[in-house]
């Protein structure tokens, strides 16, 4: 496979995963902005998902429709969902002959959907949840289309590597955002709504309820988001999947490239696996999340260098 093609497939998957993550995060946050007027602030989210300056972010403030417009539809915000979908499609366009026609059409439709007037009207004046729901729904359509049409070849492996790498980064980031909201002070005895919203954003609330019925504790949330292998958004699960798809590349890799990446992914996996993070140690937690993120970025950089030919 051409290095450029592998690169584009990888990034297409990352942008789509990021799109899905951002949309779900916006949905839960928007709902909580309507519900928890007292404590709610958009600022942590704006700081992570906008490339606007501090003054601009402060100007947007806590005005929910404005925030949504900026994070969803603003063309000038490099991290907006609009730009993520556009970039996913640009990448798909450059590799149209390596993804199926169905996947291409699905992404193309997605691009037309986010440019649709109705979505813009819903976000600005109507019910943003309707707009978010239809965007999230289309994202799921994409995942299904990939699953049932793409051949299980090299392209599919890069696609999944991109997807799980991005998902691991997103989970770590979202956890970090929520913990920052709480100033990493997790000794509060009362239940923390922020963590409940985190689980909503990661589609993990139902799993939590089934595992810990009627017992909402910050520690359990943390364990699920980091270590639960049955939870498809946990950092541990994502790394295992990443490694699984990476291993399939072995026969199609240069031995030294493979060795490099195998080491990096294996190290990140084990660092997560053999860590024992407890809420009481807020500094350790902060360092752990920082280190994990650095390792994930390191893996992306190594793919760029050893497999995509961009040194």
């Amino acid at each position: 496979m051409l290095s450029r093609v592998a690169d584009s497939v990888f990034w297409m998957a990352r942008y789509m995963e990021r799109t899905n993550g951002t949309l779900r995060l916006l949905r839960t946050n928007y709902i909580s902005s309507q519900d928890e007027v007292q404590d709610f602030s958009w600022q942590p989210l704006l700081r992570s998902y906008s490339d606007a300056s501090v003054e601009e972010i402060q100007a947007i403030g806590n005005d929910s429709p404005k925030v949504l417009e900026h994070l969803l539809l603003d063309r000038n915000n490099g991290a907006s969902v609009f730009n993520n979908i556009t970039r996913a499609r640009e990448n798909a366009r450059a590799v149209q002959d390596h993804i199926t026609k169905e996947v291409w059409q699905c992404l193309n439709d997605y691009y037309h959907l986010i440019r649709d007037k109705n979505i813009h009207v819903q976000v600005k004046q109507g019910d943003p949840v309707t707009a978010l729901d239809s965007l999230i729904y289309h994202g799921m359509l994409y995942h299904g289309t990939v699953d049932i049409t793409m051949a299980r070849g090299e392209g599919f492996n890069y696609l999944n590597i991109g997807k799980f790498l991005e998902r691991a980064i997103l989970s770590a980031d979202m956890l970090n955002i929520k913990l920052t909201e709480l100033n990493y002070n997790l000794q509060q005895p009362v239940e923390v709504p922020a963590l409940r919203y985190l689980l909503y954003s990661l589609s993990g609330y139902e799993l939590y309820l089934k595992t810990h019925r009627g017992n909402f504790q910050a520690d359990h949330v943390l364990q699920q988001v980091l270590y639960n292998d049955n939870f498809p958004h946990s950092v541990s699960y994502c790394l295992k999947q990443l490694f699984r798809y990476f291993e399939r590349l072995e026969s199609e890799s240069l031995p030294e490239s493979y060795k490099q990446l195998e080491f990096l992914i294996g190290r990140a996996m084990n660092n997560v696996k053999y860590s024992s993070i407890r809420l009481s140690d807020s500094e350790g937690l902060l360092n752990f999340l920082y280190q994990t993120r650095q390792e994930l970025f390191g893996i992306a950089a190594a793919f760029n260098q050893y497999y995509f030919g961009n040194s």
Partner: protein
Amino acid sequence: MEGHSLLANYNVQPRVWDEMFGKDGIRPAYRNVVSAIQNLSSDEMTHKDELAKKLFMSQGITFTVYSSGEGIEKIFPFDIIPRILEAAEWKHIEEGIKQRLKALNIFLKDIYNQQFIIKDGIVPAKLIYSCPNFIRQMVNVEVPFDIYTHISGIDLIRDHDGTYYVLEDNLRTPSGVSYMLENRSITYRIFPDLLPKNNVRSVKDYPDLLLKNLVGLANRQKSDPTVVLLTPGIYNSAYFEHTTLARLMGIELVEGSDLVVDNHKVYMKTTTGLKQVDVIYRRVDDDFIDPLVFRPDSMLGVPGIYGAYRTGHVAIVNAMGNGVADDKAVYSYVPAMIRYYLNEEPILKNVPTYQLAIPENRKLVFENMDKMVIKKTNESGGYGMLIGSAATEEEMESFKEAIEEDPRSFIAQPIISLSSAPCYINGVLQPRRVDLRPYALYGPEGIDIVPGGLTRVALKEGSLVVNSSQGGGSKDTWVLG
């Protein structure tokens, strides 16, 4: 035509050949189609029209127009009423194109080697050497199987008596073939059952024929040579076509930066290292293909690819330097080439062409400018063109000046009216002018032309310019079996 609401307002212009209406009413080829659509309400027709647009949009059969920094997706306008050719008409066209291509190929081989045609005084040397597309680097280059024009699109038009004329031979990198394929796939969605009922010949063999020819050109003794399609990239207006063809043939779509040349061999950069490339179907123009030999500022090409081609390590399709054969001034010698090389009479006529480098011609043309089309020899896409009947005094004057300055770069042709075909526009069936571009594939085993082609339509009323860059659209083209 009473009671036929759809046909009620269809007025054929005088002295224009209409593809659907003859002097005895609807021509036989169109009868089935007319009876299928004439009783449809305008709502139903409009619904079909909208369905076609939606299908193009959602399949991403679009080109991007960049304005104010943002890309806008446009579809190439498609008219839902097919253009229909009878079997006998097609046979005539097919034979004519094959004959013409044979002669043009021998011409290219000759002009880049011994130049018998110049020595025998058939074509003036000055005309060839003054042509900017005569590429000196191609002189004495051995080309696989002596084939230069692997893929060509010959533009045909019809005069008021229905005679076919060749308007242009596109021998460099003709585009539009993906629309021939896509238009067909849209037609069977909007008119179920109509294709089989009319015994329309299929065009779907095109990618297979092309791939067979490309594989046949590989020089290495290998059962599965590496064939790639070289595109200028996603910002090219024909990018959709490049991906479609690559997908349909199952070959890699590469950009210039994916290829490197080492020791006169071309390689592509893959995740497992370098892989040698045997055949390149390039959609990058001559000027841009190798910055070491042609334009040094080109970012689209591959440095050193010309050397690899010249040493025979890679086959490039179409050959470089074909522009000398489809130059608009050289065009007027094609009938003479057919007589000279093949000893045959041309089957398809040429449009009479005045070279303005000849003073008498210039005088004649200047006196009759309102009846002439004046074209720059080196441009295409409907640019650099003046249609005398529609031009203002000022435009004519500025063309005259330009011609006096550089007469070699202009030719003039009498205005040929172009035939009209029915189009469904704004809820009414109306005649619009059309041309026809069949695509011919020249491979080691001979010439194949898939029965069909691209019918281009001038969508503006009264317009004679069918180029997509000038507001033209296209139609599905049926050849009946």
